[in-house]
Structure formats: structure tokens, C-alpha cells
């Protein structure tokens, strides 16, 4: 095989990593959109907030330490202990559930039956609030996140590809883990929604609120449940992204990359979010690989949006979305 094809394949494989991150963020969007019809602008910030909280717990940071020091003239920063990753993750999950409960109590409950655009605006507010809260709680500096997922070149991929093609691919081991974890997460979600009572309730609410109420399903409980799951998915995305490039505020911007993913995959499809994310991840790497010599670099910044525009022209419901039928 020619070198060029091999390099392209390597680029595509690396695109999968980035793609799976997009997928995870898009997945959070889809879950909330399906259950409540809300486009949750805050999904990216949820990932950031989860990652910040996780690092904070792990390193034994005192929350609000800047604020406390400013008010009381103290000088505290750390509790002076570190926490094992597993415990920190469990605690962060609890925090995400708490956020879900608060969002339902303080925001959603008061906006029942409002126009979708109003709920959308509320999530924009929520995004900025959480961003600020994360900042005040844990500080604004870039943080290193390490929960023990191996990083660096995967020797296994290197060896296998070397034996196959005579050229060893460079693939970050983190990518493989990300793929595996995403696969487990999606399988768990599918089993949950297809085979459990609450999963059935979730699908019921996504389908028809009135009917769901009439069989005794509490909408408020389901909302807390979906926001909790979306929070946990955000935590997974935050861990992956944070391990790769550090926990920083640009993390919340990956939410914007999830938009074209949703347009590709459809707003209501879980497999769509996954496939859409991978397509965009791989697509932008390949596009960059082939087009860079011709039109210059930085195509990754706009490729996804352009692809989304093309999709909007030819398949506005996305790959897996529900067909849009206008009945007259």
C-alpha cells in the first residue's frame, strides 16, 4: 500500500478518538432532547463542571477557596489529602445528580408547558451560571486530570499495524479506552431504556406526556433521571477530554462541535449521536489530510459545520432521526 493511504488510515484512526468525544457530548444532548424536548445548551458546560469537580475532589482542593480567602483573609487551598480516583468519580456522580435535582426544582418545574425557545434560553442561562460556578468553586487555571487511564502511543496498535502494513500507526492509548468506555456506556444505556421499568417510563415520557401521566409516571422524576444520566455522560466526556488536553474552559466549547453531530445523527437517536460523532471526527481528520496541501490548514474548525449544512440540504432529519412528515 502506498504511504499516502497508510497516513490517511492513521489520520482516520485518530479521528475516531476525537469523534468519540463529540459523540459523548452529543449523547447527552440527545438524552435530554428526547425526554423533554429541551435543547440543552449547557451540556458542554456540564462536562466541564464535572471534570473540574472530579479534579477538585481528587486533589483535595477546598471548594470556593478564593472566595473564602478573600472574605476571611485566610490562606487555604487544599485539604492536604488526595482521593483515590474511584471515590472521586463516585462523589462527582453524586454532585451531578444533585445538579439534576436542582435544575428540575429551580428551573424546569417553573417552565412547564412553556415554548421550547424559552426552555432553550433557560439552558443558556444555566450554561453561564455553571461556568461561573465552576470558576468560583475550583479556580480558573488549567488543571491536569489523571484517573489512571493509560496514555501515549499504544504499542499494541503499533505492532499490529507494523506487521500488517510495514508501518506502525501512532494511536493514543487513551483513544482505545475512550472507544471501549463509550461502547460500554451506550450498551448500558440501551439495556436500561429497553429492559427496565424506568427506561420504559423514560421512553414513554419522550413519546407522550399526557399518556405518561395517565399511567402514573411522574414527569418531574423522569426529568431528574434524564438530567442525572446526561450529567453522568457529561462526566465521562469530561474525563476523556480532560485527560487528553487538560481541564480548561475551552472544554465547554466542544458543545458547539456537538451541534453538527446532532444534525448528522438526528436529534432523537442515540446510535445517531454515536455514528454522527465518529463520522465527523474521522471526516475532519481525513478532510484536513487531503485538503491541507491545497487550501491550507485549520479546516477542522469549519469542516463539521459545512458537512452539517450539506446534510440540512439533503437529509434534514439526520441519518437516524424521525422522518419529518408534514400532514395537512
Amino acid at each position, binding site marked *: 500500500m502506498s504511504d499516502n493511504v497508510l497516513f490517511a488510515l492513521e489520520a482516520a484512526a485518530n479521528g475516531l478518538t476525537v469523534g468519540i468525544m463529540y459523540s459523548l457530548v452529543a449523547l447527552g444532548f440527545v438524552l435530554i432532547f428526547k425526554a423533554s424536548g429541551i435543547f440543552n445548551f449547557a451540556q458542554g458546560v456540564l462536562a466541564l463542571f464535572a471534570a473540574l469537580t472530579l479534579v477538585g475532589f481528587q486533589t483535595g482542593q477546598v471548594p470556593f477557596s478564593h472566595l473564602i480567602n478573600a472574605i476571611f483573609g485566610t490562606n487555604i487551598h487544599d485539604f492536604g489529602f488526595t482521593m483515590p480516583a474511584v471515590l472521586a468519580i463516585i462523589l462527582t456522580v453524586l454532585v451531578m445528580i444533585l445538579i439534576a435535582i436542582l435544575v428540575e426544582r429551580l428551573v424546569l418545574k417553573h417552565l412547564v408547558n412553556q415554548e421550547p425557545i424559552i426552555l432553550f434560553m433557560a439552558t443558556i442561562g444555566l450554561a453561564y451560571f455553571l461556568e461561573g460556578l465552576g470558576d468560583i468553586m475550583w479556580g480558573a487555571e488549567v488543571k491536569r486530570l489523571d484517573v489512571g487511564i493509560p496514555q501515549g502511543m499504544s504499542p499494541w496498535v503499533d505492532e499490529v499495524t507494523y506487521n500488517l502494513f510495514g508501518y506502525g500507526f501512532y494511536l493514543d492509548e487513551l483513544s482505545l479506552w475512550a472507544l471501549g468506555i463509550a461502547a460500554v456506556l451506550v450498551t448500558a444505556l440501551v439495556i436500561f431504556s429497553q429492559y427496565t*421499568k*424506568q427506561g*420504559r417510563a423514560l421512553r414513554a415520557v419522550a413519546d407522550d406526556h*399526557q399518556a*405518561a*401521566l*395517565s399511567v*402514573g409516571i411522574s414527569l418531574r422524576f423522569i426529568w431528574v433521571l434524564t438530567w442525572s444520566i446526561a450529567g453522568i455522560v457529561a462526566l465521562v466526556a469530561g474525563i476523556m477530554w480532560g485527560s487528553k488536553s487538560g481541564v480548561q474552559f475551552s472544554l465547554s466549547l466542544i458543545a458547539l462541535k456537538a451541534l453538527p453531530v446532532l444534525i448528522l445523527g438526528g436529534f432523537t437517536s442515540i446510535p445517531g449521536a454515536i455514528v454522527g460523532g465518529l463520522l465527523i471526527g474521522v471526516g475532519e481528520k481525513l478532510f484536513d489530510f487531503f485538503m491541507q496541501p491545497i487550501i491550507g490548514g485549520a479546516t477542522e474548525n469549519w469542516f463539521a459545520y459545512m458537512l452539517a449544512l450539506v446534510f440540512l440540504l439533503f437529509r434534514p432529519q439526520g441519518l437516524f432521526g424521525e422522518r419529518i412528515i408534514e400532514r395537512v
Partner: protein
Amino acid sequence: MLDQSAEGYVTADGRQIGPVVLELKNITLRFGGVEAIKNISFDIREGEIRAIIGPNGAGKSSMMNVISGFYVPQEGEIIYKGYKRAKMPPYQVARTGIARTFQNIALFEGMSVLDNIMTGRMNLMKSGFLKQALWWGPAAREEDEHREKVEKVIDFLEIQHIRKTPVARLPYGLKKRVELARALAAEPQILLLDEPMAGMNVEEKEDMSRFILDVNDEFGTTIVLIEHDMGVVMDLSDRVVVMDYGKKIGDGTPDEVRNNQDVIDAYLGVSHDE
């Protein structure tokens, strides 16, 4: 005139009707300045088939929504099983044993017939989310038990052949039947049917009437129904409430109601020139 003592009465076809299970007292419901229900009282007895009839816009569906908790009346009280019912959201009313169907079918279109009916048993399932996640065995067994009950309902309503079909693909008449099945799966004490036969042809209406009678007979379920087809109502029901412009203008056996002058006026229209 029926002998309506506190214990109940015996119908013309020999069924024993029990004591009052749900009583509506002086219910008034307003939407802004419009009074949809004006000071209406009536009761529903155990094992009864109770109909609410009236011209379009009389407030029948509003009444149904009050009973099922979707609307909260501004005035009046609801006595259920001897206790005044506190204000509660509709999903909690459903949990007290009141199931319903909707005038414009409200099914979960994306789910199969079986899954739709399984949601009806939501409140009877005990395993919580965590238990299902951590303790798979017993939860799976519970799921099987509920599945068995659901299969019985499916047999009862003769919809075996469509059990795996996504609801969105079914014709109207069958959707109505699936909705009834979902309500039945909850094993309700009171079943509210909002125009169960609307839009059906004669044959489908006959089937539905038979199912309603069978449900009442087999499970002793109390049934409250709204229906436009007078023939059907008079055949099916034990007692009838007649509404017009939000007011109750008649209440009694089909025969009593049929001969009530107000009811005749409301239905046939009355000339004001005379």
C-alpha cells in the same frame, strides 16, 4: 325508579351494584372567565357502568379530566373511597387506581403494542431503578410476572396478532383497543373512557361495546364513559348523567333520562318562538 340504598342496587340484568366509590360534590371548573363545569354533583357506584352524555362543548371531557386529576376544579370536592381527595397531580391519581383513555388516542407511538401495555403496569411494579440495576434476577422475575398479566389482557381484548407491532402502524380502531388494554393492565378500580367509540364503524363499535361489558363483568371494574352514540349509551350504561352548557340537566337510568324533558330539549333543540 331503582332502589338506590347505601349498599347499592340490582340492575335490570341482575348485576349487583355496590356502594358509592367516588362522589363529586359541587364541582365548578373555570378557564379564565369561562365556566366549563357549573356546580355539578353526582356519584359513581362500585361495579357500575356510568355514562356522561351531552351535546358538544357540554363539559363532559372536562369532567373526565377533573376525575383523572388533569384539571383541578376551583370549587367542590371529590370523595374517593370514603375520603376527601387532596389536590394531587394526575400521575398520583393514576396510582390510586383510576385509569383512563383519551378522546384523541394518547399512545406511545414509537413503542410496540406490548411495551405500551406494559407501561400500564408501571405502578404495580415494585423493583426500583437501583434494584433493577444491581439485583437483576428478582427484577427479571418480576418483569416476567407482569408480562404474564399483560398477555392475559392481550388475550382478553383479542390483540395477540399485533402484540409486537409498533403502535404507529396500527389502524385507528385497533389503537383504541390498545389504549383500552393499557388502561386495563393497571388493574384499575375505576376505568374512565373518553369517547371509546368515536370514529368507529358499526362493527368496531359492537366489538368495543362487548369488550366494555366483558371488562365490567369479568373484573368488576367500575366504568365511567363519555359517548355520543345514544344507542350505545342506552344499551351499555346503568346510570347516565346528562350535561349541557356545563350544567347537569339529568341523572338516572337510561329510561328516566330518555323521558326527561330538559334532556329532550337539549338534544332535539327547543323552539323559543312558542
